[in-house]
C-alpha cells in the first residue's frame, strides 16, 4: 500500500517536472509586447556575440534584421540591440585591454567625432522621417555601405592571402603618404604606431557617427575598415579600439531612445546580453588565433551576405505589398 502511494506521487512529480520547462521556453517581452522563444533569443545573442568578439563589430547590422525577422517591432529591435551591444562591447574591450590591444587615445578622438556625428545623424533621420521613406533610406544606405566595404575588404584580404601563400610578401612600407598627412594638429598614437593629424580620426568618427545615427547601429562594420585602410592602424589594435568607441555610441543611443521613444526592452536586451557576452569572450579567443587577413576575409563575406539579402529584398516582389503600423503607440 505504502510503496504504491509513493510510486504514484513519484509519477506525478515526473509529469509535473516534464511540463515545467516546456512551458517556460517562451518569455514575454514587456516593451515589445510579444512572447518569444527563450532559446531562440539566447542562441541569436550567442552567435552574434561570437562574431562581435572575433571581428570587433557590434553586430547590430546582423542582430537588428534578425530580430525584426522573428517579429520584434523594428523600433524596439533597434533600441534594444543598442543596449545589448554596449554589454557585448564592454566584455570585448576588457578582454582586448588585458592583451594590450586598445588604443585609448585614438578611441577618445574617434569618440568625440562619433558623438557629434551621431547627433547630426539622428537629426537627419528625424527630418527624413517627417518626409517619409525612412525605411527605404535605411535599406539603401545598408546596401551601399555594406556592399562597398564588404567588396573592398574581400578583394584586399584575398589578395594578401594569395601573396602570403606564395611566400613572396612584398615588403610593406611603414606608412604611405597621402595629402591627408599634411594636415595640421598632428598627434602621436603610440599603440597604433601612428603620427597623424587628429583631424583624420575626428573626421572618420564624425562620418561613422552620422551613419550610425541614420542606420541605428554601432557602426563597427564601417569603423573597422576605416581604421585599417584610412588610418593605417594595425588590425590587432583596431578591434579593441573600435569596441571601446562603440560602448559610448550605443550607450548614447540607448539613453536617447529611452527618453524619446520608450522602445528599449530591457528584458530582451538582458537575454541577448547574457548569451552575447559569453559569445564575445569565446570570439575574442578565436580572433586572436586567426590571421588578420583571414579575419578580414570572413568579416567581408558576412557583410556581403547581409548586403545581398537586403538588396534582394529591395528588388524582389514582396509577399505582401501592404504594411501596417500603429499610429501614436503609447
Amino acid at each position, binding site marked *: 500500500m505504502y510503496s504504491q502511494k509513493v510510486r504514484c506521487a513519484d509519477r506525478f512529480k515526473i509529469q509535473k517536472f516534464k511540463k515545467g520547462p516546456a512551458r517556460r521556453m517562451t518569455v514575454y517581452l514587456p516593451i515589445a509586447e510579444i512572447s518569444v522563444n527563450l532559446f531562440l533569443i539566447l542562441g541569436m545573442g550567442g552567435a552574434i556575440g561570437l562574431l562581435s568578439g572575433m571581428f570587433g563589430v557590434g553586430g547590430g547590422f546582423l542582430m537588428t534584421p534578425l530580430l525584426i525577422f522573428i517579429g520584434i517591432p523594428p523600433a524596439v529591435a533597434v533600441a534594444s540591440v543598442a543596449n545589448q551591444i*554596449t554589454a*557585448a562591447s564592454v*566584455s570585448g574591450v576588457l578582454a582586448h585591454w588585458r592583451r594590450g590591444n586598445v588604443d585609448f587615445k585614438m578611441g577618445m578622438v574617434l569618440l568625440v567625432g562619433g558623438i557629434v556625428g551621431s547627433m547630426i545623424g539622428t537629426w537627419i533621420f528625424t527630418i527624413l522621417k517627417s518626409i517619409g521613406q525612412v525605411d527605404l533610406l535605411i535599406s539603401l544606405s545598408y546596401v551601399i555601405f555594406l556592399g562597398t566595404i564588404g567588396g573592398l575588404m574581400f578583394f584586399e584580404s584575398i589578395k594578401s592571402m594569395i601573396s602570403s601563400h606564395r611566400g613572396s610578401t612584398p615588403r610593406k612600407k611603414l606608412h604611405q603618404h597621402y595629402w591627408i598627412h599634411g594636415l595640421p594638429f598632428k598627434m602621436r598614437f603610440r599603440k597604433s604606431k601612428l603620427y597623424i593629424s587628429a583631424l583624420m580620426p575626428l573626421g572618420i568618427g564624425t562620418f561613422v557617427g552620422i551613419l550610425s545615427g541614420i542606420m541605428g547601429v554601432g557602426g563597427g562594420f564601417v569603423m573597422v575598415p576605416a581604421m585599417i585602410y584610412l588610418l593605417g592602424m594595425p588590425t590587432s589594435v583596431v578591434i579593441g579600439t573600435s569596441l571601446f568607441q562603440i560602448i559610448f555610441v550605443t550607450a548614447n543611443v540607448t539613453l536617447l531612445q529611452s527618453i524619446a521613444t520608450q522602445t528599449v526592452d*530591457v528584458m530582451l536586451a538582458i537575454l541577448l546580453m547574457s548569451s552575447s557576452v559569453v559569445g564575445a569572450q569565446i570570439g575574442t579567443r578565436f580572433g586572436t588565433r586567426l590571421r588578420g587577413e583571414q579575419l578580414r576575409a570572413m568579416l567581408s563575406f558576412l557583410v556581403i551576405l547581409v548586403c545581398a539579402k537586403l538588396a534582394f529584398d529591395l528588388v524582389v516582389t514582396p509577399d505582401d505589398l501592404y504594411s501596417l503600423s500603429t499610429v501614436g503607440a503609447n
Partner: protein
Amino acid sequence: MGQISRTVGNVALFAAFLSFVNLHLARVATADSTLVTDISSRLISVNSDFTGAELLLFGSIKSDSNLDSFGHDDLIIVVRGPHKNIVVRRKDRIAGIWMNTTSVEFTEVPSFYAIVSNRPVTEIASAGTLKRLRIGPERLNFHSGAAVDASLPFQEAVIRQKSETNLYSDQEGAIYFLGDTLFRTTIELPANVPVGDYVAEFYLFRDNDLVSAQSSPLFIKKSGLGRAIFEFAHNYAILYGIAANIVALLAGWLASIIFRKE
C-alpha cells in the same frame, strides 16, 4: 423598455453600447427569451511566461415555453479588443526598387477581433443587421479620410494580416449546445494578444431576428515583472535609460571577470 439585457458588472463604459442594443431591440424584439452569459475570466494577466490563453464563454438561453421555437435559435459571440489608429502603406516598384508610395490611415481599428457562431453568420442574420452590429471583420467600420473604393484594398490588407497573426478569427459552427439551453465555446487569445480593454458580446437570434444581446467587459493586463518594467520605462524614461546602461556595463564586466579565471 421591456426586454431583458443584464450587465454583469456595472461598468459605465458599456452604457453606450447597451443603449445602442436596447434601441435596436425595441425595433426587432418580439419574442421573450433570456440570455444569461459569463466568461471564464474577466482579467487576464500577461506575465513573463505568457503563451496565450483560452477564454471560455458560456451561458444559457431560456426559451419561452409558449413559443417552443428552440432549434431556430442562433448565437453569435464576438470578442473585440483595444481600438487603435493604424496606417497601412502600399509598396510599388519604382526604378526596380519596391518602396512605399500610398498610405491610408484608419481610426479605431480593433487590435483583436474574434467571432464565434453556431453556423455562418450570413445565414443567421440579414446583411443590414450584421453591418449595424459590426459582426464579421469585413463589416467593421474602417474610418479613413480616403474614398471608400480607394481604401478598400488597404482595409482588406488589415484583415488579411491580422488573420495571419491570429488576431482576427472567424469560427463557424464552434458553439456547443448542451441540452436545450446551455451553450459553451472557447476563443484562443494568442501570445501576441495586445493588452487593453476588451468586450465580449453575445447575440441571440431567432428566425433571423435579434432577440437578445449581452455584453461583458474583459481586461488583458500586464502583470508582475513585465508590468513593472513597462511602467518604469514610461514613467521614468531618463532613469530607465541610465539603468539600462548600468545593466549593460555590469553584464559586460561580469562576463569578462568570469572568463578571466579560466
